[in-house]
């Protein structure tokens, strides 16, 4: 199918379009290709744009407005409080502690998840028997809904009836209160890293995209496996890993898993989340739906938003010189190729 056909009968010559169609005596002024393309763009992008405006920009704006009030979401007597909520965010030791805990949690789980995913991808990229089965098994945890995974972890790590302590029991070892401090953090980290199948699958795709001739050439030149991996595989995989780093950081900073492995994952039970698992999103949830402090919770969300932006910006800055693109990204900033370009 030619690009002409895709673009319609008058793609190349407006004059030809004018003569091709039977029309009234006074011919309509033909629309330019650019105008029609713009029209098509807006038609197709419109639904998404409306969704973005209605479901992202509006809630963000509404939350921003709420963050300057003392609203509880229900009372008509809410009033404007200026920056009081923001001042409280930065002076409340509980909030600052949960922000620090969230940063620490991300600092531990993100590298661990990426390293585990990459390690598994390298293993599963080897020509081994039943490779498809192993790939499926490793990817399965990523397909399990987080609620189901959390429930299973809760059952495994319950102090009095869980199988983890049941195992210790066989060896006459004292059971631990896994879901309470100070162990709860490690259960949460395990649950997060356990679902590294997503990282594995993307890394595996990246590994398979590495030209075999480069690795062959390195082997011929006498490079061992480790040298090939660090000098060829990792650099060529770095854009993929960088993408995963950024998305994992953003997802981890907004992690909601602590509530799911809590005893009662509802506003009623949010207070029972062990202190070491009280990440910022748990604080936000508790403030909204347990304490009814919509204003303060909205301020917390905006602070988290700024925090995520700042961390992402920092990561981009620090990645310079560490991520190798096959094509200089600066050059791809020029006019993108579109259908019809030759």
């Amino acid at each position: 199918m030619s690009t002409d056909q895709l673009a319609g009968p008058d793609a190349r010559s407006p004059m030809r379009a004018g003569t091709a169609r039977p029309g009234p005596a006074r011919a309509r002024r033909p629309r330019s290709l650019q105008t029609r393309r713009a029209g098509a763009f807006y038609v197709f992008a419109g639904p998404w744009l409306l969704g973005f405006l209605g479901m992202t920009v509006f809630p963000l704006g509404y939350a921003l407005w709420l963050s300057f009030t003392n609203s509880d979401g229900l009372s008509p007597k809410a009033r404007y409080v200026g920056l009081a909520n923001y001042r409280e965010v930065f002076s409340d030791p509980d909030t600052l502690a949960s922000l620090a805990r969230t940063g620490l949690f991300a600092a531990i789980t993100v590298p661990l998840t990426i390293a585990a995913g990459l390690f598994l991808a390298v293993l599963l990229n080897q020509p081994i028997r039943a490779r498809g089965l192993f790939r499926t098994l490793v990817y399965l945890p990523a397909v399990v809904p987080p609620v189901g995974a959390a429930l299973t972890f809760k059952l495994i790590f319950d102090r009095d009836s869980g199988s983890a302590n049941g195992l210790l029991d066989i060896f006459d070892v004292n059971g631990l209160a896994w879901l309470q401090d100070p162990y709860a953090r490690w259960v949460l980290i395990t649950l997060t890293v356990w679902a590294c199948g997503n990282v594995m699958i993307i890394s595996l795709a990246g590994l398979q995209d590495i030209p075999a001739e480069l690795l062959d050439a390195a082997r011929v030149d006498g490079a061992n496996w480790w040298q090939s991996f660090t000098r060829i595989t990792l650099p060529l995989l770095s854009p993929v890993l960088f993408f995963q780093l950024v998305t994992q950081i953003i997802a981890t900073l907004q992690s909601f898993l602590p509530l799911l492995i809590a005893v009662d994952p509802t506003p009623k039970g949010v207070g029972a989340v062990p202190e070491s698992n009280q990440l910022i999103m748990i604080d936000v949830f508790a403030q909204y739906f347990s304490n009814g402090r919509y204003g303060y919770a909205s301020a917390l969300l905006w602070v988290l938003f700024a925090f995520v932006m700042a961390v992402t910006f920092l990561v981009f800055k620090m990645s310079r010189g560490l991520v190798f693109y096959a094509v200089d990204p600066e050059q791809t900033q020029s006019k993108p190729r579109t259908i019809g370009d030759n």
Partner: protein
Amino acid sequence: MPVSSRGSLDRRRFLAASAGAALSAAALPGCAASVDSGSGAKGAKETLTIMDTPWTKKDKQNAERTLGMNLEIVTYDITKLNAMLAGKNPPDVVRGIGATDVPYFAARGLMTDLDSYFAKSDVLKPSDLAPANDVWRYDHTTKKQGTGPRYGMAKDYSQDCMFWYRTDMFEAAKLELPSDTEPLSCDAWLDLGKRLAKRRLGKVKVYGLSGTPLGGPLTQVMWMAASAGGSLFAEDLATVDFSSPEALKALTWYLDYAKADIGPSVVNPNPDGWDWPTYQANRMAMATDGYWFGGTIGGDAKIAEVSRFAPAPQLGSHRISPCFSGTGYWVPKEAKNKDAAWKYFEWYFGGKPAQDRATTGWGIPSLNSLRSKMPRDTAFHKQSYAVQQRELAYFSVLPVSPYAQVDALNAVLTKVLPDAVKSGTSAGKIADTLNSRINEQLARGKELAG
């Protein structure tokens, strides 16, 4: 494949039209939300939206047939309810816990005053309503629960600080069974729990006592402080005082219970969220649950054979047996189908469902006229019925503050107490921390509720 230029143009137009249709489809529900679903086209059935625990398909169909209306069941979710109330598009009927929900929602003007409906009803007559229905009343002048207009109704109720126990475990431990008539002291109760607990390698294999009633540690302190002759909340319900001698005694009891590690507490919460799975698995000797728990026990003949019901223990000499539930329904002020909601009320609270519920033992019926239907056919049911009948004399409702949700106050307790238990902080210091944090919350709520 050659495609005619005319054809490709049509396809583009088609895709554009599809995009337009998608937009329209997205916009339609928004428009529909503003339409009163109760005034449908001629001959169309009205739809009643109920926020409740999930219904079976069969129950829903039966109810629709009987009521002659469509039912839309929205699964209960407090976050969703708050959003719907804030958006002034609430369900027509909402499930709630009368004792703890009413002050908060009524004080904010979110509930419909149902007095006029009760006045003209032939099915739900105020004279037939059990006293427990008073948890659904709220007086805006005094800002207190128990009097004033009715904002809902209980489907059934229990006295939530009574407890069930396993005779087989008492016998195995060679302990005397608790009396059916005389309440245990809280100290004796805790001591029994310690003796009944069984441990192995740092794990509690059998819980001696699950000592927290419905409503969490907050209601526990409220109950015990009241039993000791005091009150956790101040007269105007705007502040708490955990440092008063009675509240401090209650708090100390709870800390001792949590430290003893003989049952679920803020330090080691029950992973099941309620007592039945552990009780049924022969891993709990005493469970603090009201009469409603007998409905579950009654469904398992083996467990029923070794289970008995006992009066609420007392911390002091002031015998009380409070109700912290009174679960039922209410109608939001902005509900669109209030008449249909009332029709549902009359059917659910006074019709066949109410009669069926009364016979199962899942709580005391909220209509006095149905009390005669409570089960008494087995030795288990006879014992629990007799104990419950005697306990009604001590029925009480302890008012909850309208300035914060009970969940919010419990969240403070569950945050502060675990560390305090582990570090051995004195009860006095913990009381000061709780006073400071909870009173701060109540003050914020008072500003908004007025």
